[in-house]
């Protein structure tokens, strides 16, 4: 579904990604794991065209995103939950969902998808008229995921959904991710919380200093000595 070939990207003279290649197949849930500053967020921003590629190519279902403007990426079926959630704090929960359904094609399905989001996260239905800025961290993450689902994406990109949340909330966020995968969405998730994320995804890539260092199924990576020593502290 999503294919990255030798992608390089950065900010000005600072290069963050060096020839990254990876693939996400339809129906899969894939994680990109790695330490702080490895380029994980840049990778998702490159897919969403929020940073320009300096080399390489991103294709979605065989179509190149090279000439696609940032605001048109979502029309290709790619929806991103950005780092730190980035809700509109002075809009209500429901208005945030409305922004997720901004595309003309999504507007006609607004009511139907909103009810789906509320069934997935009943808490959001209870808080529909509340300003998003007043939600707790975990609730904000639900709202941000719900907002990203409102466009009816084929591929959901999640940027550090556990960042800044208490450990018990992180577990429930990961359960949410698992449920979204079970609903049939294809998911690419970027995480620092390696132990937790490997419990819910099928496969993962390890990104270090802008390069893919290894990849494999979650079970393989959890068992590998390098990852156990460097990231899991075992």
């Amino acid at each position, binding site marked *: 579904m999503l294919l990255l070939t030798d992608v390089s990207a950065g900010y000005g003279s600072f290069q963050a990604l060096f020839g990254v290649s990876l693939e996400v197949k339809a129906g899969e849930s894939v994680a990109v794991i790695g330490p702080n500053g490895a380029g994980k967020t840049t990778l998702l921003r490159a897919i969403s065209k929020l940073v320009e590629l300096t080399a390489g190519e991103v294709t979605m279902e065989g179509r190149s995103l090279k000439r696609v403007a940032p*605001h048109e990426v979502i029309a290709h079926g790619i929806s991103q939950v950005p780092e730190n959630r980035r809700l*509109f704090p002075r809009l209500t929960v429901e208005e945030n969902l409305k*922004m997720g359904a901004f595309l003309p094609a999504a507007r006609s399905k607004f009511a139907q998808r909103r009810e789906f989001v509320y069934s997935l996260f009943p808490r959001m239905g209870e808080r529909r008229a509340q300003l998003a800025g007043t939600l707790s961290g975990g609730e904000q993450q639900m709202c941000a995921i719900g907002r990203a689902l409102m466009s009816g994406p084929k591929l959901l990109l999640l940027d550090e959904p556990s960042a800044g949340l208490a450990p018990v909330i992180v577990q429930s966020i990961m359960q949410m991710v698992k449920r979204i995968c079970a609903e049939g969405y294809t998911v690419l998730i970027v995480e620092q919380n390696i132990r937790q994320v490997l419990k819910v995804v099928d496969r993962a890539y390890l990104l270090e200093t802008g390069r893919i260092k290894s990849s494999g199924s979650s079970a393989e990576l959890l068992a590998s000595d390098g990852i156990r020593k460097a990231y899991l502290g075992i």
Partner: protein
Amino acid sequence: MDIFDVFLLEAVLNGILLGGLLALLSLGLNLIFGVIDVVWICYAEMIMIGMYAVYTLHVQYHWPLLAAMAAGIASVAILGALMHQFVIRPVLGAEPINQLLVTGGVLFFLQAAATLAFGIEFRNLGVRLPPVAIGEMSFSMPRLIAFAVAVGGVAATWLFLTRTYVGTAIRAISQDRQIMPLMGVNPDRIFTITSALGGALAGLGACLLVLQYDIHPAIGLSFGPITFLICVLGGLGNMLGGLIAAFIFAQFISVGGFFFHIEWGYVIAFVFFIAVMFWRPQGILGGK
């Protein structure tokens, strides 16, 4: 002096009528600042252009007044969109002082263009509406119309901003500009629509002012500063604050003018403004 004086009541009611008009005038400026973060110093001059547009179409080309007004609103809306595309967009990333100077340049450009096209003579529509008498009180018909239409315009803007997708995006973009593309929103398009809407509100204000005042190229100076001060008093960019400030300001002008002299009404209003700025520099409802 008897506090229940009927003429004092008349002054208070006239203040409310004036407040509605000032609220409309400041709304467009506030909207543009709140969303795009640029102050259009030339906003009152766009109203002036709208007044000339209505005057030209109605008096010189003999269009029916309402058609001339509709065309006037549309032309200032287009002027607003052009203003964003050709003046603001190139300086969006520039220092605030440069953005301010650019819109100040447009102010002089529009004034000079109006002088060139129409001369410095005072013009008016020649429409004279009879005053409305309620008991011992008398109200100017254009003011009553201006109040009703201004309140309608403010309400319509509010409905647009809260009920539609584009309106919600206008409010959202002022809260987080960077992630708008992730929603499928082209920020430049929203900015252009916001500028056109701000222009349309200026055009609507022009239609209401042209019923009450003579037109001349410098007329923007007689309400531009007040419009700007109302926005600052309410908290620049805060639309609700602007509405409240408009009605407070109008009461100072109207009731102050009743007790002393109309010019003193303005003096008292500005003293109040300065006092509030010491107490709350961010304005009545302003954030940080």
